[in-house]
């Protein structure tokens, strides 16, 4: 069987498995939410209201229906790409996801770019002189940023650069005195497309600190991954062979070792993107970034079942999709991989 057919077969099997995986995830979330104590009525009414009033609201929200019926409705809606309606504000879950997902993606992608630049620079820094000072600094940077608790780092950076120095806003996604741009939902992109500097600077100012924080925290992964893989590649036979042919060390590293060392980094980048779609919860909450993770956290607190289910299903679908794309990309780039 040719490599191309193998790849297509692999792709087909993954695509066939994806709906099953999504059904399992959706069902699990549906069940877990109902098993957890407290429902949307408890979250909405708190300790107030009589049992009669609670029952009336439960009926109004359809929570008094038998669980299997609620499950069937949920699955039926899902099959028709209908994610349902929020119990808290009666808005379509699809609309809420469409509103918050671009915010998370914008933050995630910019953070990823920062992480890659910082991580790869640090990972590559000490390669000329292993065990040298630069190498040591790079290793410390990788371990340090990887080990930093994200909520702590985010709060410290917020305190220093936003509250203390006042260089950046404390939170939010756009200056509150301006009306946010309409368009793609990616404010930076909207600003660039319209060529409106006020939109670009407003979006960038709000994006800078959360994206840098997230990028910094993620950069350690790339630093460590590149460092390890590059070391391994530099000790491999094909690099020795290149050296023995008299190729300069710079060429050996850049042309022979680095491309091979970057392949696992691509996989890591894919996994990171997938995790960022779900949002960097703590970063979004600390910087009041109105992304999907922030919404998910609110929805869980409010026991807004359809919104939690909808967000989880959408995020799971995107994660499946991204990991599939990354797998295919790696397979196309690395001829050693078989299926």
């Amino acid at each position, binding site marked *: 069987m040719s490599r191309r057919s193998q790849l297509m077969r692999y792709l087909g099997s993954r695509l066939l498995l994806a709906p099953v995986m999504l059904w399992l995830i959706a069902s699990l979330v549906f069940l877990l939410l109902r098993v957890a104590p407290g429902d949307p009525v408890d*979250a909405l009414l708190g300790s107030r209201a009589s049992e009669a009033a609670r029952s009336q609201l439960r009926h109004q929200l359809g929570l008094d229906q038998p669980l299997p019926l609620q499950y069937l409705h949920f699955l039926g809606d899902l099959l028709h790409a209908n994610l349902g309606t929020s119990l808290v504000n*009666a808005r379509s879950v699809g609309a809420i996801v469409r509103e918050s997902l671009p915010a998370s993606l914008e933050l995630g992608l910019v953070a990823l770019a920062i992480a890659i630049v910082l991580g790869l620079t640090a990972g590559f820094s000490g390669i000329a002189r292993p065990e040298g000072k630069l190498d040591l600094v790079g290793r410390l940077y990788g371990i340090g940023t990887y080990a930093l608790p994200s909520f702590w780092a985010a709060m410290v950076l917020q305190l220093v650069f936003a509250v203390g120095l006042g260089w950046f806003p404390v939170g939010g996604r756009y200056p509150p005195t301006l009306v946010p741009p309409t368009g793609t939902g990616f404010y930076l992109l909207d600003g660039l497309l319209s060529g409106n500097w006020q939109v670009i600077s407003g979006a960038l100012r709000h994006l800078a600190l959360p994206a840098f924080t997230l990028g910094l925290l993620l950069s350690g992964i790339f630093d460590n991954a590149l460092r390890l893989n590059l070391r391994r590649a530099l000790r491999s036979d094909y690099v020795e062979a290149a050296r023995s042919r008299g190729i300069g060390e710079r060429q050996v590293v850049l042309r022979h070792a680095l491309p091979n060392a970057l392949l696992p980094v691509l996989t890591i980048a894919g996994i990171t993107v997938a995790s960022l779609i779900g949002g960097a919860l703590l970063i979004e909450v600390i910087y009041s970034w109105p992304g999907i993770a922030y919404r998910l956290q609110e929805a869980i607190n409010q026991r807004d079942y359809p919104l939690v289910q909808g967000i989880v299903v959408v995020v799971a679908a995107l994660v499946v999709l991204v990991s599939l794309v990354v797998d295919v990309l790696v397979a196309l780039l690395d001829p050693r991989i078989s299926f």
Partner: protein
Amino acid sequence: MQGGKQRAKKQLGLALVLLGLGLAGCSDSSSPRSPLVVAAYGSIDTTDPAQATTVSALQLLSALGDPLYAIHANGKIEPRLATALPKLSGDGLRAEIPLRQDVRFHDGSRFDAEAMAFSLRRFLAIGKLSYVVGDRIEAVRVLGPYRLGLKLRRPYTPLAALLSSVNLTPVSPRAYRQHRRSYLTGGFVGTGPYRLSFHSSQLQRLDPFNGYWGERPRNNGLALVSMGTSTGLFGALRSRDVDVLLSTSLDPDQQRALHQQAQRGQLREGAGPALEIGYISLLSDRPPLNNPKLRQALALSLNRAQIGRRVSDGLRPPLRGLVPPSLPGAVAAWPTHNIAAARQLLRGEGYCGAKPLQLNLTYRSNVPTDRLFALTWQESLRQELGDCLQLSLTGMESTTAYRQLGDGAFQLIMLDWIGDYPDADNYLMPLLACSKAKGHSCLVGASASSGSFWAAPGLQQQLEQTEKLEGPARIAVLESIQRRTGAAVPYLPVWLVRPRAWAQPQLSSPSFDGSGRVLLSQLSRRPQR
């Protein structure tokens, strides 16, 4: 070649630095003409008065709409969209309300009795808190173009206070034609001093409404922003990202810091009427707390002043009644701190020494002050009464706790309560009402669903009397109810929570109405000297 690369790198570096500095320099700082930025905790998911339940959403609606009546900061009820207080029929079952004739909705349509009736009926049909109104108002009638009639289920004298609820603010029938029985979440068309020009869950833009019938807002508009953490809110005020900060859900130490800053003149502080009460519900129908003497001992052991000082630096005044002292009918009926008396009671019941009374206090783990209260009380008891009374603590997320409240799952649980409208009835009924009782045990009713299960012969009749009586007679019954409750201790009032707001020094001090909401239209920039 090498030199060219170096130069390019330097230029790129310089460009990045300039971009960074440019961004940092492009602050969002506001001009005197720009809207004021008001920040509060938590997203505002809805702008529909039939759907709003959160403090933030109600604060927003109070700027966008007008209720029939408003409660002044001095506690007096004054007509807003009504022109006089409700005129009750002889049997107290019918009310007639005259309405203003000079009011228009934000969409230009006229406010009249039809519009008010439309809004009330809509709320009764789909309002999430409709039980508050539906329990008292049976039907809404239009008696004339500007005369509204209400049919009550039973006589209810605090009707004007009930109608001061922000949830009952009228909406334009023209704008809500398609939403008679469904919510309109993305907009709001009411009669208030502001109209909603932009809404997302995190940001709402309010522009002054030119056709407003009353006093025009003293600012050029508002931008209400929601933040996800107390630290973020605190930092946003400190860094001047926001002009005004509301205290809801702000951590106690941060409130204290802002209060101290205000005292030094670095901020302007405003405080509203203390209408939120913090209390402990005691499971009084099961051992050991079915013994009233043990409940009394517990009441005597609580050093409110000390706990209030340690937890909130005195920002939460001690409370010895279920009704906030600012409301008519309030009385301090619970005993004061007296360790010797508590010890004597406990000893008399066979506790102390080898067999101390062991109780469990549940606190809401997501409410920082609850946890601080629990830890402080536990330690205070250990020091003062450790040989007689020991307190263990359990933290539980609030929604989980609310779910189990009516099941009698908690010996002691720390809760809070703020009435939907400021009247004593709205504090006593939700905690003490009981429709089915057996001796001192409430089987069905508010007392059971709030985790106390306490009942007393004739108490329900007294509660119902307060809905019919007026003036001194009503006050006397309200006080009697509280004295009976204070002696039986099914609840333990702890403290009062006063809403606060802080503004930048160049702004006017925030002021509150009698319902505890900031009067956003009165916020203004002070003229520069």
